[in-house]
Structure formats: structure tokens, C-alpha cells
């Protein structure tokens, strides 16, 4: 049990911090522009694919630098040349646009790189077990993911609270018009935020691609979970995004690791059903099977009972 707990905690933290890298960008973009970017996870996928392409020619490490930069540039371009234009047509049009963008980006990825998973691997230098515990080893690459995520979190926090740009961003979140009046170029700030947010998603893709797999549907597989995270944490709250990311990450890893079924509970209280019962799927349901459902159940419950999210102060 201790073994399961420790490993689930570690893996859950790695996964949770990865979610945070995506959700931090998403939540920043939302709080500034009021846009829930459906295509956010597509930029994550783009990051992984660009890094894969770069790693084939000049190795993993340059990919870690250049792939997020390219993704960020693309993101800034999308904001500048499309989103700003759609903004005139209202919120629904913006949501529909980012939804369409996610659809199109997935098709473009399939067009360029094909339907199959691409062999994108981490660097050889990190290909060793960091430590062995209870006979299972913890790969160094996961520790590397963990450190990058933490570094990014600290960097983001410092930029937002200690620098002038961070102050302008914070002000633009709540009072965009006033910031404009003071002579700051708010559209430029928006573009940079969108670029930075998508670049963060790109970094997440670069470091997660080797572990989670680099395939066309990687965006859709993670995209909805990232939404769950930002909504549970409270839209626009970075701290909330961090807590919710860790929460979802750890809950999901634990749910996969602990193999209990509804039947076990029923047996505890002395009830049992035959295998031919109409609702047999209910009795044989196990926690690992439930794992994909849990985040969405949490999302719906949060939206019903606390629409501001755990740490948010405005309604979604």
C-alpha cells in the first residue's frame, strides 16, 4: 500500500504539474481576453511534433528551446490575424473559432505527420532510473519533467509579481480599458499573453511528448482535462490552476492504481448479484474504469455548486 501511495503521489505530481503548464496559459488568456481557448491543447500537440521534427536533425535540447518559440509565434499570429478579427462578432463566435482551430490543427498535424504515433524520445542522457524503490524504478526523465514544471511555475510567478510587464498584465486582467487609457498598448499585451500562453503549452508538449506519446489525437485526449482544471481551480486564478492541476493529477493516478470494484463494497455489506443481472455493468465497475469519468463528474459538480471554481472570484 505504501508503495502504491508513494508512486501514485510522485506520478500524480508529475502529471499534475504538466497539466499546470497547460492550464496556466489557458487561465491567463481567459482572464485577460475572456476567451476560453479550445485550441490550447492543440498548441501542446504542435509543441511535441515540432520538437520531434527538430530532435531528428539536431537533437532533443535545441527542440526544447526552439519548438516552444515557434509555437508561441504561431499563437501570437493567430491572435493578431484571426482572433482579434473574430472578437467583433462576440463571445460565441470566439468560442466557435477556437473550436474550429482545434479541429483544423488536428487535421493539419495528420496531414503533415500522418495518423500514426511518431517515435519521439527523450534524450539518452536522461535514460536511466533515478532511484529504485520497492523494486520499481523512477525514471530520471520524469524528474526532469518535474523540475522544468517547477522552474516554469516559479518563473511565471516572478514575472507576474516582480516585473513591470507583470504589473501591466495583472492590471490588464481586471481593468483593460484603464490600462489602455494610461498609454499602454493593450492589444500588444494581449498578443504577447496569447503567444506566451501557447508557448507554455508548447513546452508542455515538448517534455510530455516522449512520455505520453506523440500522436494526432494527443490534443483532444488532454484538452478536455485542461478545461476541467481551469474551471475547478477558478477561471483566471493561477494559484487555483496549480491546486486543481495537482488535485486532478493525483486523483486520476490514484484511481488508476487502486483496483477496487463496486462489488467489493457490496460484498462488504453482504450483498451480491449474479453475473446475468441487467445492471451487471454497475456491479462490476472498478475504480480504474471510473478514472476517466472522475474529472468530468468533478467539473459538473463544481459548475453546479460553486461556479466560481475553488479559488476564482468571478463566475465563468
Amino acid at each position: 500500500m505504501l508503495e502504491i501511495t508513494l508512486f501514485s503521489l510522485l506520478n500524480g505530481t508529475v502529471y499534475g504539474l504538466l497539466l499546470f503548464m497547460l492550464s496556466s496559459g489557458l487561465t491567463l488568456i481567459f482572464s485577460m481576453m475572456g476567451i476560453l481557448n479550445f485550441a490550447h491543447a492543440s498548441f501542446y500537440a504542435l509543441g511535441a511534433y515540432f520538437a520531434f521534427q527538430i530532435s531528428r536533425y539536431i537533437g532533443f535540447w535545441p527542440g526544447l528551446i526552439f519548438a516552444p518559440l515557434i509555437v508561441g509565434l504561431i499563437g501570437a499570429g493567430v491572435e493578431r490575424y484571426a482572433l482579434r478579427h473574430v472578437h467583433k462578432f462576440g463571445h460565441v463566435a470566439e468560442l466557435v473559432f477556437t473550436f474550429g482551430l482545434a479541429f483544423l490543427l488536428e487535421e493539419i498535424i495528420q496531414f503533415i505527420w500522418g495518423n500514426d504515433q511518431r517515435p519521439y524520445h527523450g534524450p539518452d542522457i536522461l535514460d536511466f532510473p533515478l532511484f529504485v524503490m520497492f523494486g520499481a524504478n523512477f525514471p530520471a526523465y520524469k524528474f526532469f519533467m518535474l523540475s522544468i514544471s517547477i522552474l516554469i511555475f516559479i518563473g511565471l510567478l516572478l514575472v507576474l509579481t516582480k516585473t513591470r510587464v507583470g504589473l501591466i498584465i495583472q492590471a490588464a486582467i481586471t481593468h483593460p480599458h484603464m490600462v489602455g487609457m494610461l498609454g499602454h498598448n493593450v492589444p500588444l499585451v494581449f498578443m504577447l499573453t496569447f503567444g506566451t500562453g501557447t508557448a507554455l503549452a508548447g513546452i508542455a508538449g515538448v517534455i510530455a511528448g516522449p512520455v505520453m506519446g506523440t500522436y494526432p489525437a494527443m490534443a483532444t485526449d488532454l484538452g478536455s482535462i485542461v478545461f476541467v482544471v481551469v474551471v475547478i481551480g477558478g477561471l483566471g486564478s493561477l494559484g487555483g490552476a496549480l491546486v486543481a492541476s495537482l488535485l486532478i493529477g493525483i486523483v486520476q493516478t490514484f484511481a488508476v492504481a487502486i483496483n477496487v470494484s463496486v462489488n467489493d463494497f457490496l460484498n462488504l455489506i453482504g450483498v451480491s448479484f449474479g453475473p446475468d443481472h441487467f445492471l451487471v455493468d454497475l456491479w462490476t465497475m472498478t475504480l480504474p474504469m471510473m478514472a476517466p469519468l472522475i474529472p468530468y463528474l468533478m467539473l459538473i459538480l463544481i459548475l453546479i455548486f460553486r461556479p466560481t471554481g475553488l479559488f476564482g472570484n468571478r463566475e465563468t
Partner: protein
Amino acid sequence: MSTLGNMRRAMNAEAKRRQRLYWTVLAAVLAVLPWVFSSSFAVSIMTQIGIASIFALSYNMLLGQGGMLSFGHAVYFGLGGFLAMHFMNYIEGGFPLPVPLLPIIGGLIGLLFGVIFGSFSTRRAGTVFAMISLGIAELIASSSLIFVKFFGGEEGITGDRTMGAPFLNFNYATDIEVYYIAAIWTFIAMFAMYWFSRSPMGRMANAVRENPERAEFIGYSQRKVRLISFCASGFFAGLAGGIFAIAYEIVTEETLGLNQSGSVLLMAYIGGIGYFIGPVIGAILLTLLRTVLSNFTDIWLLYLGLIFLATVLFAPAGLSGLLMMHGPAYKARRMGLLLVPYATMAIPILITTIGITGILELAHFAQNTSVDDRVMMLYGIPSNIDSLLPWAVLVGLAGIGIYGIRRAKAGVLEAWDQANAPIAPGGQDKS
């Protein structure tokens, strides 16, 4: 006073007469279509269009009329389909229900889940509603793989529509019979949805979409209005699902999946959410794209994505919006002014399309071909992907086309302004 009343009455009578004419024409077209396009491929496409039309119209009850952007509308479509399929199997076991009435079962299930999910998701519109709909969609999609007994796992569940007792001597073995079931239901559902949109209830849905606070002040609960729209929409989505079950005799988890929810959004938006007819146009177009275009190219989904984004960016009112924009010019009898500028615009657009699709097709071919097979038949012309010529020609075409579009733009805008200029008071204008 009485003249005004008379005028209004005359206008109403005129409008009613026109309405009756439209619906009669629709019924006639639906009845005659399978004789005009009689191949079984065409008949099955038309059945598909009918199903898609009902589904897209029901979606537009939410998005267009109620201002609720849903990412999980296929849930109601799919659940309706699954239940209809289960009932089809009960019919085989002797349950006394004629097969053509199965869609009602689907509709009732859609309605039931509309009540359940609507009860908590319609409290707000906007982003909250969209997020809850996404959550529900993911929840049901994941559940469909867990509850194998009901959803049949990855294979889905199947049935046989011909096993029921014959109803008026039909046993539904042929495509034509299925088409007529779908066509009759399409007519009924379209009429009912049109009636709903024109009813006081439909008008209140519009009011709540535009300004929920004011709707509250005149005494309507925004939540109740949304809930009623939501339930009605769920009913018609389930109905469409029921027809789907009859037509295909198989329902899988994809039927209620996120892709299906996305595709109905695409249909409604490309067709145009502002007009009743919009989603039908979208349903026809997308079904044709899916069935016909996919025969010609592997990358039709890429084209679909491009078309969708182009619609959002350049024609947010959709195709029906583009058509309806010309209403004033048509009434002013000035469509002639637009003819030449439109033609000069259409040519470069066509050239650009040929160039860009050519590049995409050629690139796609280059990626998937072997070393020996280097020549592709592009637009009927053998093109060697290793030589520079086809690429240069296509890039040139695209470039010329884009240049032409930019040149023609000013002319179109000018003609548009002329055609829509207010008519000079006191008589016929000279322009």
C-alpha cells in the same frame, strides 16, 4: 384605424398563403426526390440529409434561438438512437410497436435526458453552459465504453428493422421505404420546429438570448425559458437518433461522441444560425461533402476545417446569412448591379481554390507514395511530384488568384454600396 387593420390582415393572409406554399413545395420535393435521384447511393444520402437536417435544426434551437453554445448535443441524438435500437430488438421479440414509430421512443429519451441535464445546466447561458455541456459529453462518452451491456462496447449494438410486424404492407427492407420513413419524419419535425420558433415560446427564447435581464423584468424566468428550449431540442435530437437507428440498424459509441457533437456545430454554423433554413443548408452541404467529397480525396476533413474557419472569419452569419444579405438589393431590383463584380470575384476565387487544393493534394500524395510511383493524376493531368513544374504552376495559380481577389474586392464593395444605397425619395432611382 380600420384601413390599418385591413392592411395588416391582408399582409397576414399573404404571409400565411406564402407559408402554405413553401410547406407544400417542401412536401412535394421530399416525395419526388427519390424518383429524380433513384440510385441507391443517392437515396441513402438523402436519408442521411434528412436525419442531419433534423439534428442540426434541433441544435439551432439551442445555439441560434436560445444563444446556448453546446458541445455535447450528440448525447441526446446518441441516447435516442441507443434506446430506439433496444426497442427495435424488443419489437423483434414481440413488442407491439410499428417500426416507423421508433423515432418517438428516441425523442422521448432525448426529452428525458434533456430534462435531467437541462435542470442544472440551463441556469446560465454563455461559457458556463458550454463547459457543462462539454463535461456531460465527456461523461457520457466515457460511460459508453464502461457500460457494455447497454452501449455494446466498441462494436455498438445492432438490430434488424425488418423483423417487426409489417405496417400497411411495408417491411422496410428497401432503401426507398427507409427514405420515406425519414422523409415523413423530417417533414413533421421541420414543421414542428418551425412552429416552435414562431410560437410565443420561441420568441421568448430569442428575448432571453438577447437580454436575459429584461426578459426577467417582464416576468419570464430566463432559466425556465432556456430549460423548455433545451428539452424541446433534446426531443428532436433524440428523434433524429431514432431515425438514424432505423436507417443504419447499428448504433455505436461514436454516435454520441464528441466528433458527432462537433459536426452538428459545424453544420449549424456553416449553414448559418441566424435563419431557420440555415442548419438545413449546412446539413445538406456537410452530408454531401462527407459522402461525395470523401470519394475523391483522403484529406476532405482538412478542407472541411478550412471551410469552417473561413466561415467563422469571413461569413459569421453562415451561408444563409450571405444569401439573406441580398434581400434588400433583390427587393430594390438591383441584383443586376452585383452580377458583373461577383463574376470578376468568382474567377480569382476559383483559381485560388484550384491552386491551393492542388498543392495540398500533391503534397499529400508525395507523403504517402512509394519511390516507384511518382506521378499523380491531378485534375486529370499527370503530374510528376519530383519535377518543379506542377508545384510552380500551382503556386503560381494560387498567387494569381489571391492577387485577383484583392483587385476585385474594391469593385465588389462599390457595387454592394450602390445596390444597397437608399432609394431616392419620390420615384425610381437612376443608378
